[in-house]
């Protein structure tokens, strides 16, 4: 009797009951237990310094699978939003300048591969006006068009393959990870402060693009109201060690990617960039990036811009000696030089010591200060210690001998070693069956970190994804 009453649409639930239903469903936390938090020295202090970077470089290599065709030549003047290159095979994918200034140099590598388009800022920061608009009043086509011409579109990426989203697709869902669990990662609760309006506008746009759900994936420690009280999105809560913040892991637990599915994802600051385009009408490439790592004198946050030189952050702020500069985090980032540039999608720079030294019978020492996921060194006596890790490989490459290790740091229903071997054998059917569409190299970063055999697992996964992408296109 009661059942039929509540099921019937014409009789609404009493308000009290409805609320309790909602609160019971909403705060479901997905608890992940597998993984590893690597505690490193040099976390960024929560203060932001304003930078006005003068040198920029757009790197087509930041965009997996894009074949660049230049739209400018050396000496041209550009504004923020002026097309710099497009994708040869998807000509509506436009990559625009983040800043106003002059094209200083076009740098090519072997076989004339386009490496960098260097831009010198003129300091005026002029932006092309694409027209502010309320996303609610625009059609999906108009939204897409505005994002494409302004060069904001590439902030949206798709899975599988981790490439720039195809505007002709309609994704099954959109996922935003609002927290980063990687070592020394920036705190998005802090970064989003004051950007709530733009963030919400960005979400509204994404909701309209997907026809499906926008998933706002937060941590159980997320407190920022900008995240917890968003509209137009489902909130999913996660807890657990790294890689709980990886969007791929989150997708796997909310709504996994099957063969043929397309899922879009974007970072917090990517959503803000989208929001600013609609609220202000311009491509505003400014972001907040963290500078962290044991070799940084004053690790902190900086307001800088996409593709900007990191020199403003690191000059005079890094200990002397041979250091590794990384655009991104220590597990997945790109090694760069101190006069190089921030990657398009990167929101942090890490500086750690180089490890190019010989260590006398290092493998046989007790190892009180040696970080290890295993308990093969006596560092297990000091579980709370923060470490200063360098780039030494700590051993030579070997065949895969150990088993059952990767499973402990990959919180997915995927057999990591078997998938890696399928990729090495280039067995396309097996890769597909073992779930290659669900993973990205970053999801295997911890496997690579703990690998006793010292293999390059992320490169292997990237290779597997490239094989699949060629096979499917």
């Amino acid at each position, binding site marked *: 009797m009661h059942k039929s009453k509540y099921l019937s649409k014409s009789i609404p639930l009493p308000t009290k009951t409805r609320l309790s239903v909602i609160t019971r469903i909403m705060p479901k936390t997905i608890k992940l237990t597998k993984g590893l938090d690597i505690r490193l020295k040099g976390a960024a202090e929560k203060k932001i310094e304003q930078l006005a970077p003068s040198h920029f470089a757009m790197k087509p290599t930041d965009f997996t699978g894009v074949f660049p065709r230049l739209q400018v030549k050396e000496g041209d003047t550009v504004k923020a939003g002026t097309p710099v290159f497009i994708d040869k095979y998807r000509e509506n994918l436009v990559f625009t300048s983040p800043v106003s200034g002059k094209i200083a140099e076009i740098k090519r590598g072997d076989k004339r591969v386009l490496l960098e388009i260097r831009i010198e800022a003129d300091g005026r920061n002029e932006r092309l006006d694409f027209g502010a608009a309320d996303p609610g009043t625009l059609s999906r086509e108009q939204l897409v068009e505005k994002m494409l011409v302004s060069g904001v579109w590439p902030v949206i990426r798709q899975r599988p393959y981790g490439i720039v989203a195809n505007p002709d697709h309609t994704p099954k869902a959109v996922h935003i990870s609002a927290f980063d669990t990687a070592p020394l990662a920036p705190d998005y609760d802090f970064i989003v402060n004051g950007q709530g309006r733009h963030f919400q506008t960005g979400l509204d746009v994404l909701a309209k693009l997907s026809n499906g759900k926008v998933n706002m994936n937060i941590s159980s420690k997320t407190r920022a109201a900008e995240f917890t009280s968003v509209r137009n999105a489902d909130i999913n809560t996660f807890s657990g060690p790294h890689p709980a913040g990886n969007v791929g892991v989150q997708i796997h637990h909310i709504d996994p990617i099957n063969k043929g599915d397309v899922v879009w994802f974007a970072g917090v600051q990517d959503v803000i960039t989208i929001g600013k385009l609609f609220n202000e009408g311009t491509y505003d490439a400014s972001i907040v990036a963290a500078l962290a790592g044991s070799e940084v004198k004053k690790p902190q946050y900086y307001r800088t811009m996409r593709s900007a030189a990191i020199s403003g952050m690191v000059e005079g702020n890094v200990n002397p000696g041979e250091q590794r500069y990384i655009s991104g985090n220590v597990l997945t980032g790109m090694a760069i030089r101190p006069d190089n540039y921030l990657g398009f999608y990167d929101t942090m720079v890490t500086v750690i010591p180089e490890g190019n030294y010989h260590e006398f019978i*290092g493998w046989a020492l007790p190892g009180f200060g040696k970080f290890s996921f295993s308990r093969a060194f006596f560092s297990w006596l000091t579980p709370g210690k923060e470490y200063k890790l360098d780039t030494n490989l700590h051993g030579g490459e070997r065949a895969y001998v150990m088993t059952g290790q990767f499973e402990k740091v990959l919180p997915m229903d995927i057999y990591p070693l*078997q998938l890696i071997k399928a990729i090495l054998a280039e067995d396309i059917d097996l890769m597909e069956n073992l779930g290659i569409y669900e993973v990205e190299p970053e999801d295997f*970063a911890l496997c*690579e970190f703990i690998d006793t055999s010292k293999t390059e697992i992320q490169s292997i996964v990237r290779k597997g994804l490239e094989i699949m992408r060629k096979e499917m296109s």
Partner: protein
Amino acid sequence: MKALRKYLDKIKPQFQKGGKFEKLHSTFDAFETFLFVPDKTTFRGSHIRDSIDMKRTMSIVVIALLPALLFGIWNVGHQHFLSLGEMAPFWNKVGFGLLKVLPIIIVSYATGLAIEFIFAQIRHHEVNEGFLVSGMLIPLVLPPDLPLWMVALATAFAVIIGKEVFGGTGMNILNPALTARAFLFFAYPAQMSGDKVWIADKADAFSGATPLAEATAGIESGVVHFTHSFQEMFLGLIPGSIGETSTLAILIGALILVFTGIGSLRIMLSVIAGGIFMGGILNIFGANAYMDVPFYYHLVIGGFAFGTVFMATDPVTAAQTNKGKIIYGFLIGLMAVLIRVLNPAYPEGMMLAILLMNVFAPLIDHYVVEANIKRRLKRMKPAKA
């Protein structure tokens, strides 16, 4: 150390391509990386790496073997003097044991490493550390009186046929140390079985039968008569292979392996569960005297404990998936007891059970992985409809 490093850097070019000793490149590399962790750094992917490497992993296993080895050395002496009916001081027993055991270890390592170095050079590989463990495992599963040439022959067989023909460390199907033991068992049964071989330089009048043999004899005589108490068997005060007698010493090793995260507790527990399960069933039927031996005796006699901790857990030849490991381990325990009791021609069922399951491990993994694939396909169907 700086002087040593300088010297190595000075002579290094001679061992590299085009150098005078190019042919010894792998050998040089092995010694260099033994002395110094290489200065190689990451350049893409994860910029930081765990401190663990294969050398560390393998040396932890060797450390875990030490209690069994040290006890074994003492016990070889202890059993010898016991058979003579002499009371000998502790150090005499150790001294006698060392004289017996050390040559076997040296021969095992020398033979095996020589072959490993040659293969590494032929394949232009770095020398793999796997044999550091195999070279210790082989002596520990052999009787103390075995002629040294047999040790060398068995080691060579295990390394070449058991491992290198499959592609070297990480590619082999059978556990190399057990391959060596099985080779000896089938090629030289007289030196590997019976009551004479388990005590070094035994007095002829002394029985010298292992508990395993006594249990097997019970099938004929109708009653199992153990010379030793359960406690003695657990402590290892019994004749047997050098390292396998003391369940206690092996348990210490097991603790080290499990605590460091290098040995698989999953496999160890499931082997024990399998052994208890089969032992229990046989107890229920109790058709002969061996079947009536309480199931827990199986855990402390013969090579059951040693095989459980150090052989079944070999990651290369065991099942590789977590679920597979449970099935694999359980079947080892089950088969070991089954072979022991129902096929008395092969009293050491543990060795055969592990080798058998080594062969079946890939099949077990196949079905576990297949289940994962089916799950993934099933998930897709509702999306299609």
